[in-house]
C-alpha cells in the first residue's frame, strides 16, 4: 500500500460477518454471578418468572471464564475493587461492564466516605450506566437493551480501551489500593 492511497473500507462480506458476530454476541449475553454491592438484590428477581431474563438469552454463569458481562451493582469499596479487577481481567474478550446506581457515576450517597470510590470510569471502563438508587428490575432490563443495541452498532469497545490504555487504568488503581499484590495482568 502506498503512502498516498486513501484508506480502504472493509468489503461488504467482512461487514456482514461482523454484523452477524455482533448479533450473536448481543443475543446471548452471559453475566458473571457476582454481586459487588447493594444492587445485587435487584438482579435476583430478574431470573424469576415475573421479569424473565432468559427470553433475551441472558444467563447467569458462576465463573468469570465463561461470562461476557460484569455488573457492578452500586458502591464499590477499595477492598472490593481489588477483587473486581481480578475478576474483570479473567473474563475473555470481548467483555462489557454495566454499572448500576448513582454511586458509580459521581459517588452518590457515599461521596464523602473514606472507603468508596467516586467515579468508576477512572478505574474500569464502563459501557452502560443505569440510573437509580437502586434501579428496579425493569430499569435493569432497559439497561441491557441499551447494551444490546450498542453491541449491534459496534460501539461497545470498553475492553479495547482497557487494553490500549492499561497504564492509565493501572496508575489510577494503584493510587487507591495501597497493598497491591496482583500480577501484571490476570490472563
Amino acid at each position, binding site marked *: 500500500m502506498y503512502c498516498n492511497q486513501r484508506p480502504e473500507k472493509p468489503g461488504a462480506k467482512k461487514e456482514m460477518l461482523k454484523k*452477524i*458476530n455482533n448479533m*450473536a*454476541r448481543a*443475543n*446471548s449475553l452471559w453475566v458473571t454471578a457476582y454481586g459487588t454491592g447493594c444492587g445485587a438484590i435487584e438482579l435476583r428477581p430478574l431470573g*424469576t*418468572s415475573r421479569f*424473565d431474563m*432468559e*427470553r*433475551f*438469552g441472558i444467563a447467569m*454463569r*458462576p*465463573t468469570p*471464564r*465463561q461470562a*461476557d458481562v460484569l455488573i457492578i451493582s452500586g458502591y464499590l469499596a477499595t477492598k472490593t475493587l481489588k477483587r473486581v479487577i481480578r475478576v474483570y481481567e479473567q473474563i*475473555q*474478550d*470481548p467483555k462489557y461492564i454495566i454499572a448500576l446506581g448513582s454511586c458509580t457515576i459521581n459517588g452518590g450517597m457515599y461521596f464523602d466516605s473514606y472507603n468508596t470510590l467516586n467515579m468508576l470510569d477512572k478505574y474500569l471502563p464502563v459501557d452502560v450506566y443505569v440510573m437509580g438508587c437502586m434501579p428496579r428490575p425493569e430499569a435493569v432490563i432497559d439497561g441491557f437493551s441499551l447494551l444490546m443495541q450498542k453491541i449491534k452498532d459496534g460501539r461497545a469497545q470498553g475492553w479495547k480501551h482497557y487494553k490500549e490504555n492499561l497504564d492509565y487504568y493501572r496508575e489510577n488503581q494503584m493510587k487507591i489500593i495501597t497493598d497491591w499484590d496482583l500480577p501484571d495482568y490476570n*490472563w
Partner: protein
Amino acid sequence: MSNIISIVLTIAGALTWGLLLGGISRTVTARIHGRMGPRVTQNFIDMWKLFKKKSSIHHGGMFWMAPMFRITGAICVLLMVPLVIGNSITYNMSFAGDVFLVIYIMFFGCLGMALGAGNSGHPYAVIAVSRGLAQMSSYELSFSIAVVAIAVGLKTFRIEGIVEAQQAGILSWNIFRFPFASAGALIAFLPMQMAYPFGIVLAPQEIPIGPPTEYSSRFLSFMFSGRALFGTAKLILFVSLLFGGASNWLSLLVKTFLLYMYPVVVSSVFPRFRTEQSIRFLWFVPTSLALVDLIRVML
C-alpha cells in the same frame, strides 16, 4: 467417497439435532416454571458467540485434548448404531460384538473430559470429577447388565442384530420383551443425561458448574458441541436397543424427541440427591431390576 459423505452428514445432522433438542428442553422447562423461555435456536447462538470470542486461555496439553476425547467418543457411538433400518447410507461401521465396544467408548468419552478438567487445576473441577466418576461406576454397572441381558436373550452381539430382531411389530420391542432390563436401563439413562435427581456432576449451586469450570471461549464451544453430539448418540443408542430402531427418518426424529423429553420432564420437578444417596440408589435398584432379567434369560 459416499461413505465419507454419509459420515459427515451423520455428524452434522446429529449436532444440529442435539443443539435443537437442548433449546427445546430449555423452553419446555421455562414453560413448566410459568415463564417464557429463550428462543428454540438459542443454543446455536450461544455456540457461535463462544466460537467468535477473541481470546482464550488454555492450561496444558490434556486441556486441549479433553473435548476432543468427548467428541471422538460421541462420533464412534454414532457411527456404530444404525440410524435408519434398511437405509444403506447409515449402516456406517458395524461389526460383531460392537455392543461392548459402544459401552466402552461411552465411558471413554466421559473419562477424557475428567482428565481435562483435572488438568485445569481448579479445585472445584476436581471435586466434580471425583463425584462424577464415582457415580458413573454405579450406573454403568446396571446399564451393562441390562445390555448383556438383552444381547444374550436375543442371541446376538451386534447392534444391527438387536435392531433387526425387533422389527416384528410393536409388541416385539425390547421394552416389552425384557421389561425389567429396560426399566433398569431407563433409570440408568437419567444420570447419563445429567438430569436431576442424579445430576451431581454439574451442580451449579454447590460447585460452580463442575468440570468445565476453567473452560472458556473456543474450548467451551467444543465442550458444548461434544455434549450435544454425545446426547444425540446416547438417544439413538437407546432407541435402537429398547424401542425397535427407526424405519424412516421421521420416526427416528419423533422417537428421539419423545425419549429426550423423559429426562427433561423428570428433572424439572425433582431436587438433587447427595452423592452418597444417588450412589446407594443406583447400586441397588436398577441393578437388581436388570439382574432379574439376566437370570430369567440364563435359565
